[in-house]
């Protein structure tokens, strides 16, 4: 007895040691049964319930009910549950497997090695997330009249389940302001407010939404959200923080993409693999644009003077892998760089498999002729102008150097000239000479630095192509994330927890690159990817509604937030794909819903806030504090000075010298005044020079992906908005504009001021108070102060 047991144990041990892989077990023990009993319905082509039993991977990928088997755990495998009749309809349909066949299937699946992520405790959230969305039924609600589209049905169903009611509609003024700031990032003019308030046609609001979506300022507003995500900047960061002279073309590409409603799947593919994709919609003549789109891959920081180039390259690969996981997949894959992800089902190996898609990629400034929309002839003219200017100013500086050196050389060594001219204590030069020297050199430097901004180049990447690929692109798991911890070699592969496979991805042949990024792009931008569409739907929802359905928009994983309306998110994702990945179609759906048009105050405040204090169920609209850029642009708009010019190299704003000065490797030369009045999205984004106003109002950190802006209230914001030269100067122009519009009557002026900034007339009490406080001042002075006050008012900064 004892011996037999021993023998049994050793036999089991042997069979395990023999190391039958899951594939072998499938081939030898599972496939014969399935082929005989199931394949007539569940085979490739159009399998029933979308489940094919042809391969192990097909079983793991599963059908519409999820993965068919759970290796190592027959009890939790759908396949077994159906053949045992635990789930209906029992399989095979109309038949029954012999008990010994079921036993063999059970034993075979139990003998399989569990997949890494499935050994963890099952989490219903991850089951939902990692499975392709299934079109949910639109819920029926009691108050059907409130439902204008399915969004409302999903929102109302949850409210009704809690015994809550949505808030009444926002008033026309609040609504028109909300939708203007939301879509174009600027306030409506008094006439626009008036016109909308007066238009009682039932489709007035829908028309307004369509008008704003067609407005080119829409792209300028919404591109900013994307630039936050992709850590857009026009300099390297680190010590040198060198300029990326043509990075502005990526910014303009994003603006165009939003304005033209580029299908999101194509938008994704262009940024990941614009050089490789074979998508029919990617036209040959737009090739330069796709080279620009690839700039996404280079937007991270770059330590140009790093001593260790291998490490620098590894940092680049880590950064792009991490960012891609966050931006497109809403997954914090970066945690898996050093070890298996502590929370999400991402083994360390998956991080490096994902990284391997980028392993053949190298940084490259690609030739990319300017597109027609980029005004090629103007760019060329600018290029020539600066080139000439650089030559002239360069010569002038050189000539003056010679002059000074001649004078200097008599009693000093030549080498010290550079030091002596900068040392104000050195008696060799007069103050005037120094001043002239500096201004000549500044002029030369400014012209010289301007030249490359107009070169027809894309700040881009390219792949090392065969036959060199393998040598360059070999990717290894790095223990602890360190180069010294080189471990197992890996091939490009998708996240195993999503695909259920751990096999290498199939890399297509590609004309221009290694084809690796194309494979990744096709997987990410696919209707079958359970994450991509949900993640972008959630981001758009977040901007419209104040919070995402998942409030951690770049972390959908176990440690992230749980969705407030998972079915709604699934519905949106599928609707989005159905509508050809059209972002504008989704804007229209969300904005025309009654859920969006609610007031920010609810008559049921007490009850609703007790039941749902965070307003996750949307029983009222959330407040929005104007973002930094919107605030600056809006001040310029109401002062009447905002310039509408679009595109082109970044504008250098006047920035205090203690922020913009004192750098060893670059000097900050402000642009002309008119250019400085352009929208903030067109201002030059240097990583080490944050605009003080943008920074204090929680602008995006330019070094890491930013998925959600803070909306803090701190004292330096008051200094910035109350006392800055910018505010006071715009207030003066505002005063002039008001006088022009309203004439000399003080009361009319106050009315016009309120209309311009807040879109409404002042109350009697406000008029009285204003007249009282601003008494004894000239119109100009009074209106300037009134402008400053209105710019600082909560009603302006916070949108209902």
């Amino acid at each position: 007895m004892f011996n037999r047991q021993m023998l049994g144990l050793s036999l089991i041990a042997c069979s395990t040691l023999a190391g039958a892989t899951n594939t072998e077990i499938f081939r030898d023990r599972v496939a014969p049964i399935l082929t005989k009993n199931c394949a007539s319905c569940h085979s490739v082509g159009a399998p029933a319930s979308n489940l094919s039993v042809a391969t192990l991977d097909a079983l793991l990928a599963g059908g519409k009910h999820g993965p068919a088997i759970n290796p190592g755990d027959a009890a939790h495998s759908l396949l077994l549950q159906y053949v045992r009749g635990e789930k209906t309809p029992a399989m095979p349909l109309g038949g029954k497997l012999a008990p010994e066949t079921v036993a063999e299937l059970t034993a075979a699946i139990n003998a399989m090695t569990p997949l890494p992520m499935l050994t963890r405790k099952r989490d219903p959230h991850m089951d939902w997330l990692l499975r392709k969305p299934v079109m949910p039924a639109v819920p029926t609600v009691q108050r059907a009249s409130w439902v204008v589209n399915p969004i409302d049905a999903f929102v109302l169903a949850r409210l009704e389940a809690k015994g809550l009611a949505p808030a009444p509609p926002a008033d026309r003024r609040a609504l028109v302001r909300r939708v203007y700031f939301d879509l174009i990032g600027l306030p409506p003019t008094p006439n626009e407010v008036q016109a909308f308030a007066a238009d009682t046609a039932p489709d007035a609001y829908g028309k307004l939404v369509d008008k704003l979506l067609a407005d080119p300022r829409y792209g300028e507003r919404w591109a900013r959200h994307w630039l936050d995500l992709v850590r857009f900047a026009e300099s390297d960061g680190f010590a040198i923080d060198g300029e990326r002279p043509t990075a502005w073309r990526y910014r303009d590409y994003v603006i165009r993409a939003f304005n033209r409603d580029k299908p999101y799947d194509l938008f994704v593919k262009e940024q990941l693999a614009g050089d490789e994709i074979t998508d029919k919609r990617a036209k040959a003549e737009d090739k330069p644009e796709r080279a620009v789109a690839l700039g996404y891959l280079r937007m991270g920081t770059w330590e140009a003077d790093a001593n260790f180039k291998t490490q620098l390259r590894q940092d680049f690969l880590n950064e792009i892998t991490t960012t891609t996981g966050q931006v497109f997949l809403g997954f914090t894959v970066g945690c898996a760089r050093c070890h298996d992800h502590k929370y999400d089902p991402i083994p360390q190996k998956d991080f490096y498999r994902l990284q391997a898609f980028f392993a053949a990629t190298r940084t490259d400034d690609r030739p990319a002729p300017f597109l027609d929309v980029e005004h090629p002839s103007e760019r060329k003219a600018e290029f020539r102008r600066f080139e000439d200017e650089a030559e002239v100013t360069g010569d002038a500086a050189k000539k003056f150097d010679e002059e000074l050196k001649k004078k200097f050389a008599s009693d000093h060594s030549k080498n010290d000239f550079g030091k002596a001219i900068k040392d104000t204590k050195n008696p060799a030069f007069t103050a005037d000479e120094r001043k002239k020297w500096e201004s000549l050199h500044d002029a030369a430097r400014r012209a010289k630095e301007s030249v490359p901004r107009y070169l027809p180049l894309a700040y881009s990447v390219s792949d090392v192509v065969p036959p060199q690929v393998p040598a360059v692109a070999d990717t290894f798991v790095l223990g602890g994330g360190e180069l010294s911890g080189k471990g197992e070699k890996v091939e490009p592969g998708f996240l195993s927890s999503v695909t259920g496979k751990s096999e290498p991805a199939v890399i297509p042949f590609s004309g221009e690159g290694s084809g690796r990024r194309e494979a990744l792009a096709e997987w990410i931008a696919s209707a079958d990817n359970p994450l991509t569409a949900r993640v972008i739907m959630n981001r758009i929802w977040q901007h419209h509604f104040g919070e995402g359905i998942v409030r951690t928009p770049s972390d959908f994983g176990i440690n992230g937030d749980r969705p407030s309306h998972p079915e709604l998110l699934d519905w949106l994702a599928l609707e989005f794909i159905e509508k050809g990945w059209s972002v504008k179609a989704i804007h229209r759906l969300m904005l025309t819903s009654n859920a969006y048009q609610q007031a920010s105050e609810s008559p049921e405040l007490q009850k609703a806030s007790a039941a749902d204090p965070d307003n996750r169920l949307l029983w009222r609209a959330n407040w929005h504090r104007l973002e930094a850029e919107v605030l600056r642009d809006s001040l310029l708009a109401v002062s009447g000075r905002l310039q509408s010019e679009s595109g082109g190299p970044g504008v250098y704003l006047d920035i205090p010298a203690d922020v913009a000065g004192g750098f060893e490797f670059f000097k900050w030369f402000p642009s002309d005044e008119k250019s400085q009045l352009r929208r903030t999205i067109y201002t030059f984004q240097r990583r080490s020079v944050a605009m003080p106003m943008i920074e204090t109002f929680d602008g995006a950190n330019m070094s890491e992906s930013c998925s959600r802006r803070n909306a803090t209230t701190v004292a330096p914001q008051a200094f910035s908005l109350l006392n800055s030269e910018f505010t006071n100067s715009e207030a003066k122009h505002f005063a002039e504009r008001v006088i022009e519009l309203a004439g000399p009557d003080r009361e009319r002026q106050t009315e016009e001021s309120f209309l311009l900034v807040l879109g409404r007339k002042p109350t009697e009490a406000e008029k009285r108070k204003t007249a009282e406080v601003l008494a004894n001042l000239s119109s100009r002075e009074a209106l300037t102060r009134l402008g400053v006050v209105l710019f600082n008012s909560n009603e302006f900064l916070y949108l209902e």
Partner: protein
Amino acid sequence: MNFDFARRQFLYQSLTGVGGLALLNLLNRDLSAANVETVNPLAPRQPHHAAKAKSCIFLTMLGGVSQVDTFDPKPALTQFDNTVMDWSKEKNTDQPNLFAKPRLLLKSPFTFAKYGQSGMDVSSLFPHVATCVDDMAFVRSVQAENGNHPAAVFLMNTGSVIPGRPSMGAWLTFGLGTENQNLPAFVVLPDFRSIPFSGSQQWGSGFLPASYQGTVLRWKGEPIHDLKPPAEVTSDLQTRELELLRAYNHDFLQKHLTNPDLQGRMDAYELAYRMQSEVPGALDMSKESEATKESYGLNDTTTESFGKRCLMARQLVEKGVRFVQLYTPSQSWDGHTDIAKNHEKNAKETDQPIAALLKDLKQRGLLDSTLVVWMGEFGRTPDNLAEQRATAGRDHNTRAMTIWFAGGGIKPGALVGATDDLGFKAVQDIYRLRDVHATVLHLMGLNDMRLTYYSAGRNMRLTDTGGRVIQQVLA
């Protein structure tokens, strides 16, 4: 939600907060709002344990100070001056370029002596600081982990080489709030000849709310951006502006009691208004005696910049500011060539001001409640590339640096750790930067493992997976 509680909370905030002008109306009004409380992110908070220091002054020596020329004498260097070193066995993967070629040891150009009752070694670079050693604690065995300036400065300030993480000062004010609501909680005093790499990111709040970011005060001219309105805005005009703003905001608040930010912003304007008068007073140099100014070196152009900022630091901690960080110019201590000249210049600019600061704090009874930390981003090598022998400089060294602490909770005259005979590598009681962070937090009453903030999928810490408090420097 308990309504009475929420209402009380709101009223309490209105009463204690400065924006209490809505109060009169509210008291007679049935407040139907639930979550209307205003949370001041900088209100003082209970520490995790009893704090030894209330404030911290962090003296940042950018560029990396040579330990063997300052506080860690190595007689062997003199003995073996000019000797070829072979570091190949050291497997120094950090800076292979530097260590692949032959190197020569370089003796210190400075002389050392023992000072104070503790008999601390100090080189001739720091004659003034040498007179304070009995109030200081030295750690000779800190390792920096990264030998590139930008990454190393980020590591020193934020615990991470990735730009954009919250800085130490942000973590401290996040954990503790601040005692003076009329001044910023975290003040940065850079040298505008050249500010640190990445500028404001070095004192940023990263993923923490922006309330915790450092506020830069300038030592010349206006101490804060836009603190005062443009010249044409007289105080009469500004008073009118604020009165009108209060009135508009008040009316708006009445209609929208559910939005807590509205009251928060009104409070922020009142704080700004108070700062406008408090900041110039807090930093009023005319209140300082000539002797004080002289001691800080304000009358000498060499010491003026660092001296003025040391004096400002004392004034600020006197007023309850939580964290003050001073910077020498970017890469100032980076003596790759002519270490003698480089270190002499930097020591001259900082030695007298630092000693004056320590003595001034002590004399005013502030040293017990103020932690002073002095360090750079890494140490320097005891040798130099043979081919650059003539330049007599020292390179970056991640293997050893000396840092010092003084003040609140510090054991006076303590000496921790040791390097090898050449000062190349820490060999005893080795500590990393995160251990320094843990020590600073500990002295300020915070446990580095408990000071967390959820971001990017996990609870983040200044010390990442945790640091070790340097117990030997604790009193």
